[in-house]
């Protein structure tokens, strides 16, 4: 349907009516065309009968029925349309169709490349097989198999220049060096710390590609935060499907007396896990405007529950007087809890309209942040006591640093939240703070990877 540049008032009115129609989800393209044809036939007959264009339009629209009723009828007949569908390959003929197909091919190639990359070390004797333990090399380098390819995807998708692309290669190269040149004692504390921190440090490099290398421009960082949350959710969903596939692979081959373990453990799981990161990223990119974001929904669901958990924990601790037992697992779980709280705050902020006035949920968030702050302070005191008694170890130092970083974030967030809830500040300030703080996590993680092993003698 082509619309001439200078439209008559009648054409203008028809176009407007069609625009109203298209905005309703119950109508699809062909329906709109069909109804447009009807409207034009009716108008033609009415003008022939002597009505002016304006009058004919009014009568024709009136006879068509109210849009509300019409869309209700269409929705009843086409109820499937009320479910938003993720259509990845639209009309194959038009421009966007070829672009979508091209993107799919690039994504497929990158996903296969990720799957191949994870098998390359096998050529050098580091085999993945279900009978042996997985060589720790794979854990140290886990992020390096996939993140560079993910960065390449965004460099391609965002049209970044070759020069910026090469700059982006630097952090990955540095990560590869730090993960592999240090003479770690096998499965020592510093090696485990490297395994845990390298992905956090490198994720920001992916983020840099995601925002087209313009870290400080127009909301790109918040979009990257949203992307990260959705990516985790999609990855988990794909992993669930992958688990079912794996189960059936083993079962069906077992039925004909074949052992599929070598394939499942050596190929299906590692290659699938690597490729799925790329596929999940692409899905998040493709569906971002089609399907509701899931991370904020989970945030709404779990903020009250975690608030209750933290308050119950604090109350129990005060009541019984039991101190926190500073074991490694405990420290890690506390850090994770605080990371989770920061995540809840971050994703609540990502989905919130900064202009809206404070509501009940904001009060709840403030309560969550405050109780997390108290828990963090208690954990920090326990770690500090442990350190002053037994000295610094890699784990305690890393936990101390992470707790401090989260403490600073939560403290300032609590302050900004309190100001906002009392109507003295804007929500945008809180959002800005959360976003500005993002690189701190990566910088700390990079420090842990780069400095800790040598400082602590590769223990």
């Amino acid at each position: 349907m082509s619309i001439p540049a200078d439209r008559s008032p009648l054409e203008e009115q028809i176009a407007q009516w069609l625009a109203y129609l298209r905005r309703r989800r119950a109508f699809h393209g062909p329906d709109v065309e069909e109804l447009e044809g009807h409207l034009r036939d009716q108008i033609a007959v009415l003008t022939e009968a002597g009505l002016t264009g304006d009058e004919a339009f009014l009568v024709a629209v009136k006879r068509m029925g109210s849009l509300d009723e019409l869309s209700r009828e269409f929705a009843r007949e086409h109820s499937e349309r009320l479910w938003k569908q993720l259509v990845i390959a639209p009309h194959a003929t038009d421009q966007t169709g070829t672009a979508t197909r091209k993107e799919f091919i690039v994504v497929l190639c990158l996903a296969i490349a990720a799957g191949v990359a994870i098998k390359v070390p096998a050529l050098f004797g580091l085999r993945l097989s279900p009978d042996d333990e997985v060589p720790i090399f794979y854990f140290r380098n886990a992020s390096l198999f996939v993140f560079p390819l993910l960065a390449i995807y965004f460099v391609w998708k965002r049209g970044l220049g070759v020069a910026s692309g090469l700059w982006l290669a630097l952090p990955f190269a540095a990560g590869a060096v730090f993960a592999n040149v240090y003479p770690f004692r096998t499965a020592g504390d510093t090696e485990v710390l490297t395994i845990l921190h390298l992905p956090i440090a490198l994720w920001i490099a992916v983020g840099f590609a995601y925002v087209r290398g313009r870290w400080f421009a127009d909301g790109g960082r918040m979009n990257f935060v949203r992307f990260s949350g959705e990516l985790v959710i999609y990855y988990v969903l794909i992993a669930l499907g992958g688990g079912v596939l794996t189960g059936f692979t083993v079962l069906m081959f077992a039925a004909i007396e074949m052992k599929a373990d070598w394939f499942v453990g050596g190929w299906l799981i590692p290659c699938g896990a690597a490729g799925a990161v790329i596929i999940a990223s692409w899905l998040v990119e493709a569906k971002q405007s089609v399907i509701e974001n899931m991370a904020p929904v989970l945030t709404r669901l779990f903020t009250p529950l975690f608030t209750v958990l933290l308050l119950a924990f604090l109350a129990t601790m005060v009541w019984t007087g039991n101190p926190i037992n500073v074991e490694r697992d405990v420290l890690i779980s506390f850090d994770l809890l605080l990371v989770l709280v920061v995540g809840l705050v971050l994703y609540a902020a990502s989905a919130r309209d900064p202009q809206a006035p404070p509501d009940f949920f904001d009060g709840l968030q403030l309560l969550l942040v405050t109780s997390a702050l108290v828990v963090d302070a208690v954990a920090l005191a326990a770690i500090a006591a442990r350190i002053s008694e037994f000295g610094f170890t890699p784990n305690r130092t890393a936990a101390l640093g992470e707790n401090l970083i989260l403490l600073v974030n939560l403290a300032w967030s609590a302050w900004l939240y309190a100001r906002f809830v009392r109507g003295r500040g804007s929500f945008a300030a809180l959002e800005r703070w959360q976003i500005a703080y993002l690189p701190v996590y990566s910088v700390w993680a990079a420090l842990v990877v780069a400095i800790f092993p040598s400082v602590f003698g590769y223990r």
Partner: protein
Amino acid sequence: MDLTKDLVAASATPLVLAILAEGDSYGYAIIKRVTQLSGGHLHWTDGMLYPVLHRLERQGHVASKWCASENGRKRKYYRITRAGRSQLAAQRRQWQVVDDTLRSIWVQECTA
């Protein structure tokens, strides 16, 4: 005279099928034919015809095809299918029963 909504909805299926049994047609022409047949008494909200047509298509009673119309724009033509014809016959029998029943009681009323 305005018919009730339920009656309009109930009569829509046999009417549309019967009109299509006369020959292939499209939305606007079907509406015009309904008005003409009823002498202007039966009045549909134009837009409501389309969900009915789409339902009949989903049920396999009619089939549709996009063709160019005489004014050059595309138009969706509907054609009754074999299943549509048997549906029409069934509907006709049902309406006949309703019609006969009402007729007999109203005839009694008049003669009483």
